[in-house]
């Protein structure tokens, strides 16, 4: 039984709540709070605050359900992907629905030498699985086709993700019902960059999350700035 008369300021006779005494000890674990799961910052402070893990969970599956193909998921992920490439790890795009614009990626800070695009839709999930199993990638983003979305395929990816620290993102085709899975996180991505937490360790989110379009400088604003300078 540890003695309470630790060399801190307990010598005063002021009554101290037991709760505070225990809270001061960092060698006691009282089972109140879960140890935070390892996560990687999303790069959006507003979103980090809303997610139970404080970021994209590492080595876990995050499901994104966009309204339409290319409907905001890439802008959402770009800060995290840029961070991965800065650490020297590659990011994998498995069967993206459109062409990721290199100028936009570069502007967001992504090292283009560390971007790997798998363009064969038939093998995209297999490739994503291999990349995850290798434990070499910083992040893997997969856009499965409608006929590839099933519980077994998603489960396989999820198991592969647990081999490493890379967050795995699966973006479902718009209008495709997401299969039952044990994903750590499922987000809906609405038009205009609005997000909604559909499922997380703390249950669904309270309401839509709006990310400030901080990385968008409208041309009109640029022109005004130029005119002001002139």
């Amino acid at each position, binding site marked *: 039984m540890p003695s309470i008369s630790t060399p801190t300021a307990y010598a005063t006779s002021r009554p101290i709540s037991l709760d505070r005494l225990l809270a001061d000890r960092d060698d006691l674990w009282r089972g109140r709070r879960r140890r935070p799961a390892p996560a990687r910052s999303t790069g959006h402070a507003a979103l980090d605050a809303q997610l139970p893990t404080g970021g994209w969970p590492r080595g876990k599956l995050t499901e994104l359900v*966009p*309204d*339409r*193909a*290319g*409907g*905001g*998921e*890439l*802008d959402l992920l*770009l800060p995290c992907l840029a961070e991965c490439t800065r650490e020297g790890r*590659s990011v994998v795009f498995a069967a*993206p*629905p*459109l*062409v*990721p*614009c*290199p*100028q*936009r*990626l*570069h*502007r967001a800070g992504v090292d*283009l*030498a*560390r*971007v*790997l*695009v*798998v*363009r*064969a839709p038939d*093998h995209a999930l*297999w*490739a994503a699985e*291999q*990349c995850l199993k*290798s*434990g*070499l990638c910083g992040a893997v983003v997969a856009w499965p086709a409608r006929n590839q979305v099933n519980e077994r395929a998603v489960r396989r990816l999820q198991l592969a993700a647990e081999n490493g620290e890379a967050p795995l993102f699966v973006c479902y085709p718009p209008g495709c019902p997401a299969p039952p899975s044990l994903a750590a996180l499922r987000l809906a*991505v*609405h*038009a*205009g*960059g609005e997000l909604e937490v559909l499922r997380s360790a703390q249950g669904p989110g309270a309401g839509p999350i709006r990310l400030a379009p901080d990385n*968008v*400088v*409208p*041309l*009109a604003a*640029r022109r005004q700035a130029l005119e002001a300078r002139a």
Partner: protein
Amino acid sequence: MRKPSLWTGVVCPRLALEAAGRMRAPDDAKRPRAAHDAIGGQLRLVAVDDAAARMGVRTGQALTDALAIAPTLDSQPRDRRAETAWLEDLALVAYGFSHQVALTGDGVVLEVGGSRRLHGPLDTLLASLDEALAPLGMTTRLGVAPVAAAAGLMARAGVRAESRDDLERTLADWPIERLELSPAERRKLAGLGLKRVRDLVRLPRFELDRRLGQGVGRYLDQLRGRLDTPLVYWQPPETFARLVELPVPVRRTEALVFALNRVLDGLEHWLRVRDERLTALHVTLYPEDQGPKIAFSAGLGQPGFQRDRLLEILRLKLEPIRITADIERLKVEADSVSGQRPPQADLWSGTNINDAWPALLDRLSARIGEDGLCGVAPKSDHRPEKAWTWSKPGTTAVAEDTPERPAWLLPEPRPCRVDALRLIDGPERIETGWWDGQDCRRDYWVAHDERGHRLWVFREYKPRDGWFVHGVFG
């Protein structure tokens, strides 16, 4: 001071039997075995196994006689090509232990005196040699002698004579038949009443030369180390190519991978002794009955040799190939560059990302194909549809600073109707291409569609007139 040389002999006592036996079906394991060859217009046995010998079958017997004695005898024609291939493999392994390797008829001899500092004491060296020979799947016997000429003899008897005195003592007790003499010389010696090597050595030299010619005397001097043995040293071939006859024609991927794995043994030795790194492997499969041959290549992103990685690539390459006929032969050729670099593991994690990443790319491209795996790179062009290209993964590229671009580009701009769009930002005028005949003038706008998605659209004036959607923000 130069170390006294020491030679190790490796012989394959069952070479003819085992080389011919590759074509045997494995379920006949219990039957006595032999190999035969045409000698003087008659098929005679050249090798018999223990089971056959117990039944009274002897080397040199006519095949018909042998079959009369032992009707279950499984005799196969001698396969000299396989024997040569096997001896080459053996020499390749031996070359890993010494640079002085010479082929004898039924094995190799190699100088190990100079390698002892590297490989440790003789026991250790012989043990590691034995271990290296095991994957060849041949029965081998080792022997040691201080001279090259005697090493093969010692190996055949399984004797280790490390010094000249040991060798003299061992040889002295041997019957003369064990020496490599021609039948004529043997007959003459028997006629002289000489039985053991001791008797031969005791004979005055001029007597020996007068009765038998100089050959026997010279051979004896070489054996005892009084005369140098002329040797033609074996050199590993410049390029690696192997033609393998499969014991049983197969078409299953696993069986083919198994056969390829055997070839990789030889390749691994070859790469090591030639100090080369593998860059690509070309495999040709020959079906039975002269069917169309199947060829495929497996390239490595980073030169090197890692067996499990290579096998996996080969398996991935084989899987999509539809093999309609059984394969009876396969040929493997290797492309390589010089400068072997052993794989190094990261001190902390035990894996090497610099080696592992190219390995992962190799595995992916083996299944997906080179085209399916790429990076995306900017190109210096003002026309946005020409300002990007698929590139090789890992290509370093820096994009020029441009005004705001959408995250997604359509592979080609698509015509759209403007009445459904709400223009919110723009225009960005792009007027370019007059120098290559693809003159264009357009205004790019950021627009909202009716569902609130941000699109990147442009109004083109030249060469065609109209509105097009080119990208999606998000």
